């Protein structure tokens, strides 16, 4: 029983549950609200936030888990989004190397930039795998719109990520 409570209270269980909710928002609400024909990407924002708040290792693991869940509902090869998200999470964790004491706005700036980079990286990874055709100028427009929307979403997602990946809920 004690073990079960420990599992349920672990950060990884919370990660899967929160990712499931975010994925459902991604496939329903964000799938329909498409500003300028582009879908906002809350999942990549979440992964970048994990990296910024908890470092590269946690960011990469969170990216892998969330990306794998996203892959399961896409038609792209299983693992391609997981690879992109893991790289985004790991790269976002590099913030402390550049900023000694990150402020809230520097974190927002980094997660926004990293989520935009993730949107550019995704078609590139697809092209490397063999799914050519998505590497075109439109991907920069997509990245720009995703970045602009994520400026609005970032503060909320950062708070959510902080709670989700906290080591212990009591602390």
């Amino acid at each position: 029983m004690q073990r079960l409570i420990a599992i349920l209270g672990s950060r990884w269980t919370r990660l899967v549950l929160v990712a499931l909710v975010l994925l459902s928002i991604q496939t329903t609400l964000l799938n329909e609200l498409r500003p300028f024909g582009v879908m906002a990407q809350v999942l990549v924002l979440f992964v970048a936030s994990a990296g910024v708040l908890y470092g590269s290792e946690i960011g990469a693991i969170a990216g892998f888990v969330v990306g794998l869940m996203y892959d399961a509902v896409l038609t792209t090869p299983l693992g391609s989004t997981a690879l992109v998200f893991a790289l985004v999470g790991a790269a976002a964790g590099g913030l402390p190397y550049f900023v000694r004491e990150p402020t809230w706005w520097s974190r927002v700036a980094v997660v926004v930039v990293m989520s935009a980079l993730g949107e550019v990286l995704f078609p590139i990874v697809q092209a490397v795998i063999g799914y050519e055709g998505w590497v075109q100028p439109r991907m920069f427009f997509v990245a720009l719109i995703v970045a602009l929307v994520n400026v609005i979403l970032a503060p909320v997602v950062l708070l959510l990520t902080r709670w989700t990946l906290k080591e212990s809920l009591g602390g």
Partner: protein
Amino acid sequence: MATYSGKRKRAVVLLALTTVMLITLDIRGGGASSGVRSVFGSVFRPVEGVARVVTRPVSNAWYGITNYEDVVDENELLREKVAQQEGAAVAAAASVRLAQELLALNGLPTLAGINSVTAQVIGDSPSNFSQTVEINQGSENGIRVGMPVLNAAGLVGKVTRVYDDRSIIMLITDPAYALSVKIVKLPEEPEPAIPGEAVPTTTTTTTTLPAPTTSFIAGFTPGTTTIPDQVTRPTVQVPSLTVPVGNVDSVRETGVLEGRGPTRLPIVRFIDSSQRFGRVQVGSPIVTSGGSLSLAPPDIVVGTVSRINERLGTAGPVLEVSLVADLTNLSFVRILLYQPVTEQNGTPSSSVAP
């Protein structure tokens, strides 16, 4: 710090290697990835259903704010079009019936002989880099991977993933989409007489034939998409499947249609440069070529040639195709229960089979 850094690097490298292994396994077509997707789909579907209900008011408000004027304009336009089409539809139905009888008399295949399933589009691709839609019919209704999908105007795409009660359709515009097509030659216009040229003065007895009365209906496909009264899942009754004869000689492939994403028109490449066809013209209709290996039966309307990019050498021209089906506004589609010989053994899960 060094230990932590090394551990971190190892973790990232391990994850990257795992993803590469997963990608390889999926591309090689193992059943494991389909199983993972199926299990995850079973868990995720109820959560998504709840999210859809909860977020519906927000979506509706968004549409109300952003699309109201467009909807009003579109409604007026559609009313006018419906009035125009009502008359044409009667004539078209008669023409189609006549054409089908002629094709049947000559032993030629027609779409009317292929069973189909009507489905409602229930979702778009949840990604900026994938051109797919989800429909509310699946393997329970006889749908298999690779089957062609149409709407009332023409070809829309193909089935790429099938679950029990839903399927994923890859649209023609997806870069992974490819299909053999043929270009229908437009009737050649009579060459104008050259001024000053002597006209032959032979006396002949001519018989005037009545001018043909058939009219060309742009984008019309034999067979209409029937919209069910209730859009909930219909009674499960799997219709029979049409399979082309295996040993029939392949129809000459005039070209290969390839998607290029949502913002660019699909193209037709590898066009046979033989002179017997003549020159391709802008406006020429493009239809599926069919054949025992093609994923679609012959003569499904795809679109028209909108631009010809000539290339040097023997490469042949590249044609840009203006699609007849409006892929941005799909509500109901028809899945032809048609499978080529190559797809009969099992249901491959690959999403890139051309």
